[in-house]
């Protein structure tokens, strides 16, 4: 079954992971900029990272027939130092012009600080200025509910960003309704443990429907699973969801959102009904 993993950090994954994802049916990934597990010592470190995101990974993915697109930003964890964050943000306009960059992401909050919020809003302004899609990270664990509320409040201060072009990721049972009710897309990130997993994600689909929802693995350097998206498909099928319903959630939904960029394309993938 063809699927898209719309949020995965392939810079942290092995070539064997690309192979396994190809065999499982992955036809495209999109890769947001993120915290690499350590704080970078200078903005120039980000310049190299952005080359990896926009040039190295697309070539690596192509060897396995997987389309690769990127998002750029400074992640919220490294945004506490305002001067540092703004120096990295100065690199972004030229990157946003690249044909395989879909927008600004994953921006958002980490520990819900004033400085994180300031840089988050500066990213929103940048997205408005460049008319790009936005991919938003919500904090984990005890910070998620408060962070999601702060993010929704901030988005209301940027009315030029229409909700249909913004995806708020890492939703769980206590945040998904607020995101969907406000008209935004919501991402469900699947983890092996500690946070949302495939069975709970399918619970959310059964409670809220699949409109404006996608699932992703956010596979990275930590304990994560680059095959969690097809495992979600298996969970849906085991519960009696139709193949069409699975394809809607795992392929059509991300494609509809991402194609709004005008840059997302998966060579060779048919477009049902269009």
């Amino acid at each position, binding site marked *: 079954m063809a699927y898209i993993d719309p949020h995965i950090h392939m810079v942290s994954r092995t070539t064997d992971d690309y192979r396994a994802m190809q065999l499982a049916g992955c036809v495209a990934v999109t890769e947001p900029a993120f915290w690499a597990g350590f704080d970078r010592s200078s903005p120039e470190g980000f310049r190299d990272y952005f080359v990896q995101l926009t040039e190295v990974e697309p070539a690596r993915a192509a060897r396995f027939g997987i389309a690769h697109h990127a998002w750029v930003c400074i992640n919220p964890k490294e945004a*506490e130092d305002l001067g540092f964050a703004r120096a990295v943000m100065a690199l972004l306009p030229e990157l946003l012009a690249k044909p395989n960059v879909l927008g600004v992401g994953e921006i958002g909050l*980490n*520990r*819900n*600080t*004033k*400085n*994180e*919020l300031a840089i988050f809003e500066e990213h929103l302004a940048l997205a408005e200025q460049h008319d790009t899609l936005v991919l938003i990270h919500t*904090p*984990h*664990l*005890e*910070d*998620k*509910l*408060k962070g999601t*509320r*702060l993010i929704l409040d901030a988005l209301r201060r940027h009315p030029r960003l229409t909700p249909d072009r913004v995806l708020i990721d890492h939703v*769980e*049972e*206590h945040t998904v309704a607020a995101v969907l009710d406000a008209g935004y897309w919501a991402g469900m990130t699947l983890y092996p443990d500690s946070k949302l997993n495939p*069975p*709970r994600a*399918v*619970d959310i689909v*059964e409670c809220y*429907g*699949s409109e404006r929802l996608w699932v992703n693995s956010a596979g990275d350097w930590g304990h994560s699973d680059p095959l969690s998206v097809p495992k979600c498909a298996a969970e*849906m099928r*085991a*519960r*009696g*969801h*139709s*193949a*069409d*319903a699975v394809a*809607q959630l795992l392929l059509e939904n991300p494609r509809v959102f991402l194609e709004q960029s005008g840059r997302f394309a998966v060579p060779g993938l048919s477009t049902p009904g269009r």
Partner: protein
Amino acid sequence: MGEETSKGSSSRDATVDRYFIEHRAKLLDVAAFLDRCDRATGGTAGEPGADADFRLEALRRAVGLLDDGNPERTRRILELMSDLSDTPLDASPGGAACGVPRVAPRTPDA
């Protein structure tokens, strides 16, 4: 499995059949974890009054929500373990989130 639909078709019996053993084991994991904390020494969690650990206190309150007869247990437990304040912090507290706010959790409305 029943008829395939866009919303799934699992019956109550099928749901219990599919997930019971897995969740029996998860419940035993929780019990074993609490037993382990009781046996442990050399920290707040191992001393008399181990419930003083804010994380264990939250966990015990969350366990109470499992069988209170109200729906949406997952949402309510997540809210119980959430920071319910509404203003941004002046500075990062440092480190990673630990799963429960350091202030005493409040029981959210059902």
